[in-house]
């Protein structure tokens, strides 16, 4: 069988093109392409070379429209046994091609050509074209003459013209030879034989038959020559005769041959015009041709020779003639029949040619899969031949099938279908893909076939010695079909990869990636230390309005913005290293060593740093890839460049993303990451990255170590943060602010220190002091901390509760170095986040607070070292030198020994010792004298309370200093302008007004109380117990804060003793006094006394005073009549009037009959009480009498005996 047959093949003159001497392949191809332009030589062009020696047998030759056709066979072909049957199979001309510079000796060229053309006995014309001869050769060659044609060096057009002339000469010579042959053949009745004819002895009948047949065969052969000579009409005449004769003699084989020639003549005559009439005629005649070839099949010759090839050729010719999309069904029928014939073919190369032709025709028809199928059959036939050239052919044929089987090399995809690539990328960008579009990416993924094809490519490439193709095929096989390959097979592929790589030069690139699978794991934003903030030059606070102001990633209010920029924006800075996390997966059963992997950046403004990774079998690993942007612009990162198995490949993230999507849709065999045990990850798209010129870079460092500062609750600590500019641009603007939780724990930070240091040159450093106070320990951790505290371990509180310092800073507004960027945008600023790492340990824990209140009546016999005279001014009384005494003293407004303490119960669950100091901060000095504020005493007077570990203790805070000097309405009606109008409605007035004012006063009071603690040498702080104090004080604040409207004091009127004397037990002149000495009153003796009533209000008070004396000690000496009361006396109805802020004296005398303990109480009922008094007394209605009672005074009456 012959390749590339068509109906017109019968009219083509076969010309062998032989390289003579050494011709470089490139040049040979070049010379051949020049020849190929002259496949058709019009008859009109050769008339000048043609001389009619005799009368031409081609009487109807169309000199104006006809042409001679050549078929060049490079390298020639061995003579066919069938060349008598079809003259176009004869090699009728030989053209030698010689490249003179590589074959200097023209004589040897001529010799070589002569010997070469001798192999072609049938050749009628031979020429040897010698290209590019030297000068000497030109001279030499012109003498040689003969068949050697020298093409002097010239430009291509000239050479082509020269060649054209030569070809026309050859054509003319051939034409004349054909004429000769036909003239000679006619009378002689040339004997033509085919292998089909019996070699055996013929009987007589057969001899006669053979003679008859010979005529018909001669006619057919003459027809062939007419056809070759370009004269279809003459050919047709001969063929018609031949057909008649062949039919008569039953020579079916030659009949079919003549009919084939007949059809060819018809087509040549019609000059290629194909109307339906011609088509039907051709179809009809050719089916007859096929039938007759089949009929000529002789069983006895079947082993040796068969006309089957002619039948198949005829079928292919028919198919080629009809090969159009509309007639696909018919063509498929012919091709299927042809394919069926393949198994009957004896010669393997015939089968090869047949499959090649079938594949080509299917390809022409657009049946790519059919074409691929037959191509693969061809490749298998090639692979059966065990030589390198066949393997190369097999590899090339298989490479053509890869498109139909969707296993193309990446390189060929890029050439073939840019549109497909775009589809993929746009899908990847879209984020959400439709199912159908995902499916389209995996269309025609027929894994079984793909694996087989790739394996065959690998096999043929190995045999052909093409390591790169082998590598690519093995890579594709391993990457796409690892789940279908056994571990042993995977190992085999891995060794195939490394073996191929051994034969490749180092640094070879391959378009097809192998392992590992690489996907984007995350695109780390800038670490908070070097965050970039857009700068708004119009505002003072230029960082405002930048991203990340709120705690929410998504805010419904910024919806419009979110739609416009769906992709994240990322800013990188020239010269600052960046990192990207990628995940590598090795789903195969062997150890994978990635020699280097780095980010591939086609934009070229990025220096990527390679890393080496080892992946154990079935594992995945997250790897950090880093690099440095080198110039301003945008950076695109489509994937990674990987050096693995000895070859450099490009791995695109997009491909793996698509693969993973396919895996989720059930379209791909397996997800490489999941089978390695990696979690599912949402697809991360590569953000738009732009690179900006250098910015300043502040680096913070906590002086004295960056570790978390361990503080007890409420501890106050100073911290120094050192800021250094590590960039190359000075910092010109900076602003410090606070963020995060527990912001109030930062008491102060010295932002002015930073501002004064601006501009901060590169390399410069500034230290920023910060004062901290530890916050309350987190409640959830409290019990665990308590446990761990006892166990001696330190438990850190959660990171999230730390406050952070935000430092916004920026370089110069205009960029000096780069004028191009000036107009576009101001360079962005940066934000430095300095987390203040504080670990709060549980400190003293507060158990409860309560108000302790007691009044100590002047206990006779109680030995108080410094009794104070009532006459003394309160301030004097408080100036006693011993500070302990200050705790218990006469309440100057109440006139008794009053004690009010705030008792705090504290426990120490920690393992350190605390010392508690209570201090009360008083207001400014102008109030001091009136408020009885002994500030100094408060500051240092209270002793330290020590609380050992795991102990609890009570701390008492005296509250006596807070009484206001005067009971006036200012306390109740502060800021209330409607006071006067409301004066009539007492109760509502008091209710309403007290609330807010009380709270304010309580706060005021509480804020003055500071409970400080100290632990160890340098740890100190303050307890935050405001709430507790407030709760404790809430109910009785009025008593604490406000003085009674009236103060009652008793004294003996006759004597005004010195304090020293009061201690003498036996002195007759004993003072009855709140701070009385022991045994001061004698029984049976008239004791003159005085009661001093002081008015603490600003109004004059009218009242009726009464004085009661009972022999009962304690508080209940006033109310009720108790059975235990034996002796009592009442002095009542004394009506007195006390002017505002004055005191009056009322003298009276008592006569004690029985010595013992007595209590003296003064009380009064106030007449016409005003609102203030009512509010103070908390009366319910306005009619209620206001009863005011003084503290009880003890009187110890001593018997005279």
């Amino acid at each position, binding site marked *: 069988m012959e390749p590339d047959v068509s109906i017109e093949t019968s009219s083509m003159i076969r010309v062998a093109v032989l390289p003579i001497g050494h011709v470089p392949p490139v040049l040979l191809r070049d010379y051949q392409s020049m020849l190929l332009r002259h496949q058709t030589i019009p008859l009109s062009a050769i008339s000048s070379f043609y001389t009619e020696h005799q009368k031409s047998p081609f009487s109807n030759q169309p000199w104006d429209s006809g042409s001679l056709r050549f078929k060049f066979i490079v390298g020639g072909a061995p003579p066919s046994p069938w060349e008598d049957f079809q003259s176009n199979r004869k090699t009728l001309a030989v053209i030698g091609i010689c490249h003179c510079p590589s074959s200097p000796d023209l004589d040897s060229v001529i010799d070589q050509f002569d010997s070469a053309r001798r192999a072609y006995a049938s050749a009628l014309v031979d020429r040897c074209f010698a290209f590019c001869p030297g000068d000497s050769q030109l001279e030499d060659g012109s003498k040689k003459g003969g068949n050697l044609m020298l093409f002097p060096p010239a430009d291509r057009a000239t050479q082509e013209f020269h060649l054209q002339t030569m070809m026309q000469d050859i054509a003319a010579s051939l034409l004349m030879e054909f004429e000769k042959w036909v003239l000679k053949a006619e009378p002689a009745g040339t004997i033509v034989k085919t292998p089909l004819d019996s070699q055996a002895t013929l009987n007589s009948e057969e001899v006669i038959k053979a003679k008859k047949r010979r005529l018909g065969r001669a006619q057919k052969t003459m027809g062939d020559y007419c056809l070759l000579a370009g004269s279809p009409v003459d050919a047709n005449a001969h063929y018609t005769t031949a057909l008649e004769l062949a039919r008569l003699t039953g020579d079916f084989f030659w009949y079919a041959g003549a009919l084939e020639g007949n059809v060819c003549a018809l087509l040549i005559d019609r000059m290629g015009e194909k109307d339906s009439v011609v088509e039907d005629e051709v179809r009809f005649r050719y089916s007859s041709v096929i039938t007759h070839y089949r009929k000529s099949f002789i069983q006895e010759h079947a082993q040796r020779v068969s006309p089957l090839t002619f039948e198949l050729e005829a079928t292919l010719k028919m198919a080629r003639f009809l090969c159009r999309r509309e007639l696909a069904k018919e063509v498929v029928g012919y091709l*299927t029949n042809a394919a*069926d014939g393949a198994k009957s073919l004896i010669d393997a190369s015939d089968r090869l040619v047949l499959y090649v032709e079938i594949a080509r025709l299917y390809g022409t028809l657009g049946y790519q899969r059919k074409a691929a*199928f037959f191509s693969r059959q061809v490749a298998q036939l090639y692979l059966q031949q065990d030589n390198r050239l066949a393997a190369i052919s097999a590899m090339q044929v298989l490479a053509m099938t890869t498109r139909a089987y969707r296993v193309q090399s990446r390189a060929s995809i890029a050439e073939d279908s840019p549109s497909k690539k775009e589809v993929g990328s746009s899908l990847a960008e879209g984020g959400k893909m439709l199912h159908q579009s995902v499916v389209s990416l*995996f269309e025609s993924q027929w894994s079984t076939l793909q694996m087989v094809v790739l394996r065959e490519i690998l096999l043929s490439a190995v045999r052909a010695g093409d390591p790169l193709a082998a590598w690519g095929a093995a890579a594709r096989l391993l990457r796409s079909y690892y789940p279908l390959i056994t571990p042993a097979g995977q190992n085999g592929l891995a060794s195939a990869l490394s073996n191929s790589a051994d034969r490749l030069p180092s640094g070879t690139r391959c378009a097809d990636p192998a392992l590992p699978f690489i996907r984007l794991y995350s695109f780390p934003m800038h670490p908070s230390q070097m965050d970039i903030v857009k700068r708004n030059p119009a505002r003072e606070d230029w960082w405002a309005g930048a991203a990340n102001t709120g705690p929410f990633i998504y805010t419904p209010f910024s919806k419009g913005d979110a739609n416009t920029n769906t992709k994240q924006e990322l800013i990188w800075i020239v010269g600052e290293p960046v990192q990207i996390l990628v995940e590598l997966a090795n789903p195969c059963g062997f150890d994978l060593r990635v020699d280097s992997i780095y980010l591939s950046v086609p934009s070229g403004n990025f220096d990527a740093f390679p890393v080496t990774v080892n992946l154990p079998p079935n594992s995945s690993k997250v790897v950090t890839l880093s690099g440095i942007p080198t110039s301003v612009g945008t950076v695109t990162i489509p994937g990674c460049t990987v050096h693995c198995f000895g070859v450099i490949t490009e791995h695109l993230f997009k491909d793996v993303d698509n693969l993973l999507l396919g895996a989720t849709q059930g379209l791909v065999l397996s997800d490489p990451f999941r089978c390695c045990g990696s979690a599912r990850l949402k697809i991360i798209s590569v953000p738009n990255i732009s690179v900006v010129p250098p910015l300043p870079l502040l680096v913070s460092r906590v002086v004295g170590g960056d570790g978390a500062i361990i503080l007890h609750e409420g501890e106050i600590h100073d911290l120094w943060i050192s800021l250094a500019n590590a960039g190359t641009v000075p910092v010109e603007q900076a602003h410090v602010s606070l963020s995060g939780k527990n912001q109030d724990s930062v008491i102060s930070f010295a932002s002015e220190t930073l501002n004064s240091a601006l501009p901060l040159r590169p390399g410069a450093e500034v230290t920023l002091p910060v004062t901290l106070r530890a916050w309350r320990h987190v409640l959830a951790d409290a019990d665990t901390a308590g446990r761990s505290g006892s166990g001696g371990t330190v438990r850190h509180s959660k990171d999230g509760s730390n406050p952070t310092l935000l430092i916004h800073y920026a370089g110069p507004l205009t960029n000096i170095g780069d004028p191009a960027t000036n107009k576009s945008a101001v360079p962005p600023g940066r934000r430095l986040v300095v987390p203040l790492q504080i670990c709060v340990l549980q400190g003293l824990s507060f158990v409860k607070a309560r108000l302790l209140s007691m009044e100590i009546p002047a206990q006779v016999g109680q030995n108080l070292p410094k009794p104070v005279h009532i006459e003394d001014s309160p301030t004097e009384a408080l100036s006693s030198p011993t500070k302990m005494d200050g705790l218990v003293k006469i309440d100057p407004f109440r006139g008794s020994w009053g004690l009010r303490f705030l008792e705090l119960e504290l426990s120490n669950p920690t393992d350190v010792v605390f010392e508690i100091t209570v201090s009360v901060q008083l207001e400014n000095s102008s109030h001091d004298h009136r408020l009885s504020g002994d500030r100094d005493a408060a500051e240092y007077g209270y002793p330290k309370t020590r609380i050992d570990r795991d102990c609890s203790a009570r701390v008492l805070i005296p509250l006596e200093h807070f009484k206001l000097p005067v009971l006036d309405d200012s306390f109740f009606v502060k800021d209330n302008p409607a006071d006067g109008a409301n004066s009539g409605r007492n109760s509502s007035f008091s209710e309403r007004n007290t609330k807010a004012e009380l709270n304010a006063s309580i706060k005021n009071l509480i804020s003055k109380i500071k409970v400080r603690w100290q632990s160890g040498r340098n740890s100190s702080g303050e307890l935050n117990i405001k709430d507790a104090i407030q709760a404790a004080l809430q109910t009785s604040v009025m008593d604490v804060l406000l003085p009674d409207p009236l103060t009652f004091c008793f004294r003996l009127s006759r004597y005004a003793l010195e304090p020293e004397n009061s201690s003498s037990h036996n002195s007759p002149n004993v003072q009855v006094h709140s701070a009385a000495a022991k045994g001061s009153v004698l029984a049976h003796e008239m004791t003159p006394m005085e009661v001093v009533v002081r008015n603490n209000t600003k109004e004059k008070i009218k009242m009726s005073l009464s004085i009661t004396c009972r022999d009962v000690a304690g508080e209940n000496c006033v109310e009720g009549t108790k059975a235990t009361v034996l002796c009592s006396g009442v002095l009542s109805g004394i009506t007195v009037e006390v002017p505002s802020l004055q005191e009056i004296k009322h003298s009276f005398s008592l006569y004690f009959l029985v010595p013992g303990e007595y209590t003296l109480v003064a009380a009064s009922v106030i007449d016409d009480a005003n609102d203030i008094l009512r509010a103070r007394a908390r009366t319910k209605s306005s009619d209620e009498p206001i009863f005011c009672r003084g503290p009880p005074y003890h009187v110890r009456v001593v018997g005279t005996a």
Partner: protein
Amino acid sequence: MATTACFVIVSRNDIPIYEAEVGSAAKREDAAQLHQFILHAALDIVQDLAWTTSAMYLKAIDRFNDLVVSVYVTADIHTRLMLLHDSRNDDGIKSFFQEVHELYIKTLLNPLYLPGSRITSSHFDTKVRALARKYL
């Protein structure tokens, strides 16, 4: 039962979503591959032929050597049931296709089955093989 038979369901995207060697002949790997290659190539012919007829059963549409490809095209989403066989039991093949089509429709009704993805149900596989024994 046919000695050689290979049954494949091809989705509209030309992805084989179900493959089964249902012949009684001894299974050889390279033969099974050839079967798939033939079926794959026959898709070209089905693609043209399916539009020329309203019948779902396209009969024998292609052959290679002794192996014949019969095809049944479903109406819903152009899924093709393709059978490669060496027997000529036309009626049996037709019944086989019809029953497998019913099975396929039942699979499609499964809400968890994504049309166009591989059929991995072992129940489906068992049923198809049983049908092949019955009809082929």
